[in-house]
């Protein structure tokens, strides 16, 4: 039996998504920009998907820009807004220390091109302080980007409050909602954001799909130049069959959320309680804050995450930790570092992210297997320095 507990990394396609995509791959192959029948058929399929994605986040279909993923949506929002606002003289960007690399590294890239970038720290619970944000955002701030839910610890950030601060200062506000969309209700108007990113493959849709919701009136200069697709906001022929899949996934996520969210929260709590009681030297990270229901992050003392991940995988359990670097090895989590955790505690942290396929049996199996693996690794003569 293989148990997948890494749904924040990616999710399998929901079966209806795969079915509709397979059908679209065969039948809906027209170019959505064409005037003829084939183009109209493709355009109709896109529009239907657009409506479903809009509905998931309380937005209008026409404000959805389809992209090839969350990273691209983040780049479009941040680079696009920065370039559009630059002539106004605002030359300052604000973000948080626990953002996904798609946001953090985009901000850093702009910093190398002369933008002033403020990276606001988080508190020990993994929450961005609204007061610190208020201090950071100034009258020359062009854009603020703070993620909705964190990918590693699941904490939900006070987006509505931070967005209000940005608005007061005349700055645009973007949120990366890749890890919250489909897990908790989202209403872009209630949040008061200007732009919001989602990704298909985190909500049982296909990889290579994403969307950026843009409030009407927000101006971007697209970093990708080309044709006039997506109302000139994202050039390139739309990947219609994949976006059909994204639409179906959004629709399913919305339908299932009322029953799935409490189910996953109960499983997550059972997992946390079991691991913490069965493995000595464990601490939960970010658990004091509001969290998405499927995620827990647990530090395990005196053992390295890398060796734990391998041991768990050999036992058929797929989890993750930190972020994989280019070679596939692990680097200490910048999120846990930003929370001020001691280095040792960042090295031995595991992220369990539950999803549709998981059952109590899965959770109990982890609780049964993990203590033995931890003990074996702790008994290694070379751990924590050489013999």
């Amino acid at each position, binding site marked *: 039996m293989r148990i997948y507990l890494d749904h924040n990394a990616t999710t399998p396609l929901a079966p209806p998504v795969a079915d509709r995509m397979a059908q679209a791959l065969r039948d809906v192959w027209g170019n959505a920009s064409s005037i003829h029948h084939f183009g109209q058929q493709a355009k109709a399929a896109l529009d239907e998907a657009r409506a479903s994605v809009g509905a998931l986040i309380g937005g209008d279909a026409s404000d959805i820009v389809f992209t090839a993923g969350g990273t691209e949506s983040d780049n479009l929002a941040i680079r696009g807004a920065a370039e559009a606002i630059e002539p106004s003289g605002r030359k300052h960007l604000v973000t948080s220390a626990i953002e996904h690399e798609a946001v953090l590294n985009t901000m850093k890239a702009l910093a190398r091109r002369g933008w002033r970038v403020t990276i606001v720290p988080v508190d020990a619970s993994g929450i961005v302080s609204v007061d610190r944000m208020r201090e950071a955002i100034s009258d020359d701030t062009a854009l603020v980007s703070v993620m909705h839910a964190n990918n590693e610890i699941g904490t939900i950030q006070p987006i509505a409050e931070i967005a209000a601060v940005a608005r007061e200062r005349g700055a645009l506000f973007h949120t990366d909602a890749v890890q919250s969309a489909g897990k908790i209700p989202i209403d872009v108007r209630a949040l008061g954001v200007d732009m919001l990113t989602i990704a298909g493959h985190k909500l049982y849709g296909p990889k290579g799909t994403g969307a950026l919701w843009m409030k009407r009136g927000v101006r971007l200069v697209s970093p990708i130049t080309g044709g006039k697709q997506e109302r000139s906001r994202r050039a390139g022929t739309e990947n219609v069959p994949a976006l059909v899949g994204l639409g179906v996934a959004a629709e399913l996520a919305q339908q299932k959320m009322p029953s799935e969210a409490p189910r996953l929260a109960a499983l997550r709590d059972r997992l946390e309680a079991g691991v913490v009681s069965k493995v000595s030297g464990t601490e939960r990270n970010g658990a004091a804050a509001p969290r998405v229901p499927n995620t827990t992050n647990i530090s395990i003392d005196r053992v390295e995450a890398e060796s734990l991940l391998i041991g768990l995988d050999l036992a058929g359990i797929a989890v993750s930790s930190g972020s994989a670097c280019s070679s*596939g090895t692990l680097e200490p989590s910048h999120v846990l570092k930003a929370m001020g955790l001691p280095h040792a505690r960042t090295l031995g942290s595991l992220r369990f992210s539950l999803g549709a396929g998981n059952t109590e049996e899965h959770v109990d199996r982890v609780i049964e297997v993990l203590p033995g693996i931890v003990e074996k690794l702790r008994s290694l003569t070379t751990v924590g320095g*050489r013999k």
Partner: protein
Amino acid sequence: MSGGVDSSVAAALLAEQGHDVIGVSMQLYDNSQVTESGQRAFGTCCTIDDLYDARRVAATIGIPHYIVNFESQFGEHVIANFVREYVHGRTPIPCSHCNSDLKFAELLDRAKAYDAEQLATGHYARIERDAAGLYHLYRGADNSKDQTYFLFSLTQEQLSRAAFPVGHLDKSTVRAHAERLKLHVTQKPDSQEICFVPDGDYAKFVERKAPESTRPGTVVDNGGRVLGTHAGVHRFTIGQRKGLGLSSSEPLYVLEIKPESAQVVVGSRDDLGRTSLTASEVNWTSGKAPSDWLRVSAQIRHRHAAAPAKVRRTDEGRAELAFDAPQTAITPGQAVVFYDGEEVLGGGWID
């Protein structure tokens, strides 16, 4: 799994024999360069290419594959030792340290934690267990590829856990297996240089890691007469002839390196020959040092034809060795490995 032919075939043969094989590659150093703007740039990044090869081979033979990050351990033990030795006027062998301090230490421990019975590598060496339960280490069947020189420090415990599936094969047979098993690395050339110095410029590498290595000094002859100057003892190895910066009627060779006075002593080829040496950190493969002088054939560098000698234990972990005939360029920092025919009896580091 280094991504090379030997470890790839080793893994594939074990899988083919029905063993439950877990592929592991060690990430040992970071070859990416940080550019002036703070971005990581990837140039001729052999590491990532090799990891890619290992991963593809694992996928071809249908085994799981993991990368374990030993960068800090490798830096701390192997690279630091490499630099320190050069700064001290010695000529190190990082491959041996990698075997004894990483592969058959940290990695072997990991393997045990994952309930693996053995750690298999692509080394050209053979292990046999005798009736008394003692493990014996023999040269690889392909003597031209034999790697036992780098494995002299393995103990009985380590040998009991090690497997060398290509040790009884010659290189052409290994490549034939790679082709038969459709491994894409079939034609990959053997690695030649020390892996973490891909351009082969050891001096520059040492200087980058240890700026104090560039302490200038003099080149002198056997009588102490100054013949020239040099830019650091790390640029020299015993027996070296090129790059001395001297003009002389007869070819001159490095005879001795004196790090304290930063002197490099040179002389004629005849002066290079010596018959005796002492060694430290000596390991006896059987676990027991001989009680008296022992006749062996001894090898003093990777490409040296083992020569007749006698060896005896002096203090704990130390030995003295006398060759029957003078050997050229006995080099401190290199290993001396004792053989009885094909069998490794032990070895140590030349003082």
